[in-house]
């Protein structure tokens, strides 16, 4: 997923690089060295050689101290190199030279986001869109921040603006779909996920998310179809395998579900969700001994996994180990499970 971040939000100042390069070629001869270094920096950025790019931008700045775009792109390179404080410093310098540099404002917002200073991030996003109300990436990032804060309604309005300014913004469609899903509008979410996929058919996560929406709506066959797509694009996508297993479980295809959970575990052996779901599958299959074994594995991997305690309790109850069941449900309750609490109060003396 980090790759997605790079493609989606990185290289802030690259967008302007083509026209700027033209400009630079017509600039004063005395700035030739700065221009060459700047262009070399851009080239290195595309090769993801950020440290060398930083050197080239630094060189460009040394030849031309008021070169705001060089500051801006060095900020972007430092961001990619995870030197967030240094990147903010560069964006500040770019803004000192050009106070309406929206890329610098946005870059600064992105860096604040990276260091979890979300209030500052929002403030700079606001400055970005104040200067340029068509800056779709800023609306997108603001949508994301609000999504993470659980304000899905506001997030959706921000994604709306991002999409209004960039009609083929596949990520924004995906994220708006997710915000709709989280606010209960599964039907609206499905439409947006499908739009994201139509724009970029390689968006494996959008297929996965679409599948989960369909599963939640009870369309397990449709969900399996979507998960199949996600897995065909990304064969090691264990999340989709686990989800497909759940959809199969809903259809009482126990063998299929178990095979999917098993495949997810082959890719990620410590994947506790799949271990827990194995226990769920065996409970549904009424093989309570195997269910107990899988819940044991999940608990061994994560001693606070409430769901696994709930499931092990269910299996133990069916194996007539009432005391063991109640002990597990009490644990689940301690770890925040509503089911654990309910079963403890309802079925334990």
């Amino acid at each position: 997923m980090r790759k997605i971040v790079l493609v989606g939000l990185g290289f802030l100042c690259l967008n302007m690089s083509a026209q700027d390069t033209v400009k630079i070629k017509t600039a004063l001869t005395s700035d030739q060295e700065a221009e060459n270094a700047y262009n070399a920096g851009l080239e290195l950025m595309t090769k993801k050689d950020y440290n060398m790019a930083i050197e080239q931008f630094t060189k460009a700045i040394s030849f031309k101290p008021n070169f705001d775009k060089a500051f801006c792109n060095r900020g972007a390179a430092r961001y990619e190199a995870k030197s967030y404080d240094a990147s903010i410093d560069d964006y500040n310098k770019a803004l000192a030279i050009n106070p309406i540099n929206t890329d610098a404002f946005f870059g600064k917002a992105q860096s604040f986001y990276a260091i979890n200073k979300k209030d500052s991030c929002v403030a700079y996003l606001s400055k970005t869109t104040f200067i340029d109300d068509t800056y779709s990436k800023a609306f997108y990032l603001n949508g994301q921040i609000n999504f993470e804060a659980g304000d899905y309604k506001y997030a959706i309005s921000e994604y709306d603006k991002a999409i209004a300014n960039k009609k083929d913004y596949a990520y924004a469609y995906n994220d708006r779909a997710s915000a709709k899903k989280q606010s209960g509008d599964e039907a609206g979410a499905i439409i947006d996920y499908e739009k994201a996929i139509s724009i970029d058919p390689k968006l494996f996560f959008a297929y996965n998310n679409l599948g989960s929406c369909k599963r939640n709506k009870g369309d397990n066959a449709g969900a399996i179809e979507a998960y199949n797509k996600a897995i065909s694009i990304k064969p090691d996508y264990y999340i989709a395998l686990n989800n497909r297993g759940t959809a199969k479980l809903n259809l009482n295809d126990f063998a299929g579900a178990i095979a999917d959970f098993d495949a997810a575990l082959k890719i990620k052996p410590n994947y506790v969700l799949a271990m827990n779901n194995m226990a769920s599958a065996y409970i549904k299959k009424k093989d309570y001994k195997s269910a107990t074994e899988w819940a044991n594995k999940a608990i061994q991997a994560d001693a606070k996994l409430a769901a696994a305690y709930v499931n092990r309790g269910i299996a133990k109850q069916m194996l007539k180990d009432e005391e063991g069941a109640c002990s597990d449900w009490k644990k689940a309750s301690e770890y925040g499970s509503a089911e654990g609490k309910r079963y403890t109060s309802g079925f334990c003396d």
Partner: protein
Amino acid sequence: MKTLYKIVTLILFTSSLALAQNVEFEKSNFPDKKDLLKEAKKNLEEGKDAFELGKKEYDFVLEGYVEKNKYYPVSRKDYQRAGDIYFKQAQPFLMKAQEFNPNNAELNYMLGVINFNLNPQSDAASKYLEKAVTLNGKIPLDVTYFLGWALQFQLKWDDAIKYYQVYLNTLSSDAKGNALAIEDVNKKMGECRVGKREVANPQRIFVDNLGPNINTSYPEYSAFISADESMMVLTARRENSTGGKLDEGDSWPFEDLYQSFKVNGKWTPVQNFGPLVNSPEHDATSGLSSDGTTMFIFKYKEKDGGDIYVSNLTGNTWSKPEHLNKNINSKAHESSVSLSYDSKRLYFISDREAGLGAGDIYYSDKDVKGDWGPAVNIGPSLNTKYGEEGVFIHPDGKTIYFSSKAHSTMGGYDIFKSTFENGKWGEPVNMGYPINGPDDDVFFVISGSGNHGYFASSKQGGYGDKDIYRITFLGPEKPPVVMNEDNLLASVAAPVSEFKAEKIVSNGPKMTILKGVVSDAKTYKLLEAAIELIDNSLNEVIATFKSNSTTGKYLVSLPSGKNYGIAVKKDGYLFHSENFDLKASEEFQEVEKNIALKAIEVGQSIVLKNIFFDFDKATIRPESANELDRLIKLLIDNPTLKIELGSHTDSKGSDEYNQKLSQSRSQSVVNYLIGKGISTDRLVAKGYGETMPVATNDTEAGRQENRRTDFKILSK
């Protein structure tokens, strides 16, 4: 069900049966087996003679039953084993005849009827009766009635209905006396329809035999448990029963009462209650209070029709059973009894006259003198003309279990549950299969938690005759919790998780069981103390219990929906108080609280848990009256005592504010006591503010503990 021998053309019954030829015991049918035929005919005649005597007795009892009750028998119990002695005599002769000639309709009919009466749950009865029907012979019309009932016992509901219908078709609605027979067959067909529905939707339960510590090859039944399932009393008919006599009626030993205790999750071997409780006659368990200290005993004497006695546990000794008064015991038959959680109402079964049927549920309330008042019929919502038996009121005070031959039974007595809501008992709900079946299902009791039930059954695989079984109620199926996650945000690496489990609804009882041990705080000696249960909203003592003098144990049932004060008192000790504010929605819980009573000595202090103030004020709320009256009584009984009333707050609010509030509150208590005549110089008011916490102030539970009023003895 008059036995009408007619030539039955079986084709009239049904066209779907493949008819076979009836083979009479005649020479022409066995030309080469003259001697064997002679022997077979002899057996047949001997067997038939005994069978007819049995059938005559059966019909006689049946006619008498119908005459008396105005309906046909529903339960096996109704027949009182009529004809069984003759049927047992007939059986071996008829079986020998059957070995020689298995294709005689009348012989198959007789064997079918015998098996139906002696062992109705086996498939032998239906096997013979079905064959009797298929053989084109001379047999009584009631063959299809018996066959229908035999098939009902085997849960073959559709086939049973089919044969009942055939029998129904033979009953002319104009004929005298047929109206009741028609009603009976229609009822049985209705039972089959209920049975079909219930069996298709079985209850999620485990049924486990309680094992050799409880059960033997002799009959064990009528088990009762304390609400916390720590003790059980039951009836058994064992060889070594008190007096060692056999009942002439059935040649089994007389009934005795036995008890067992649960230790480390297992029932201990049963022990006979001994001669103080058991007599050489029939002594059977009839009920047990939820705390296990009051036991009701059924004793049968012909002149009183069977009455109820009560025995109380003091220390390790059960008192000599005492006959309950005439409001409970009549000349008719009284059997099952159940005491309400507060020991103030007794539910019981009686078949006294003026009831709605044979065996109705009645209740009686304890009057101010502690005597049982007039019996009140619980009414037609539960009682029917067909009879009820085995009443059990749950300690939650509003759920009643009983057996009935009516309502939606699937045959014989079935166990039903009804809930008291909006001032009336709701429609009885069948407890479902496999708790209930087509045979008699009675004497069901359930634990306080509602998770376990106990009943007696003769089911196969037991230790012999009736055994005690435990039911574990699993509740609605618990769906497993699945875990999923999605990459909801395109630009964020961390997936977003979701956990899903379908909701299930718990129908468990809403109550709290409070139990523990009362002891001396200094010497640890186990104490017998009085435990008062107070409804704080009414300031009324609603029940009084005692802890056991030997074990110090006590158990109190608290149905949800009230603010309870609990006061534990003993002379020479400071009283101990507890408060349980149980909202109506409060789920079942079992709270263990051991109480150490403090002797009245200088420096001793106790917390007064039932003194309440208005929020943020020093005004004493009315529901504190009972606790304050107890304190006044203590000061009157100990006139030299000088005490300090201390008040404490949690750490919310400023130090200064809390100090002032606590001082005002302690002064309010002192003022109340002075107002009730306690001398000022015996009382000191002290506000401690938040300076002496007894629990953390970081949680609401801790803060609640810290907000308290206590008193300390300054001098004696």
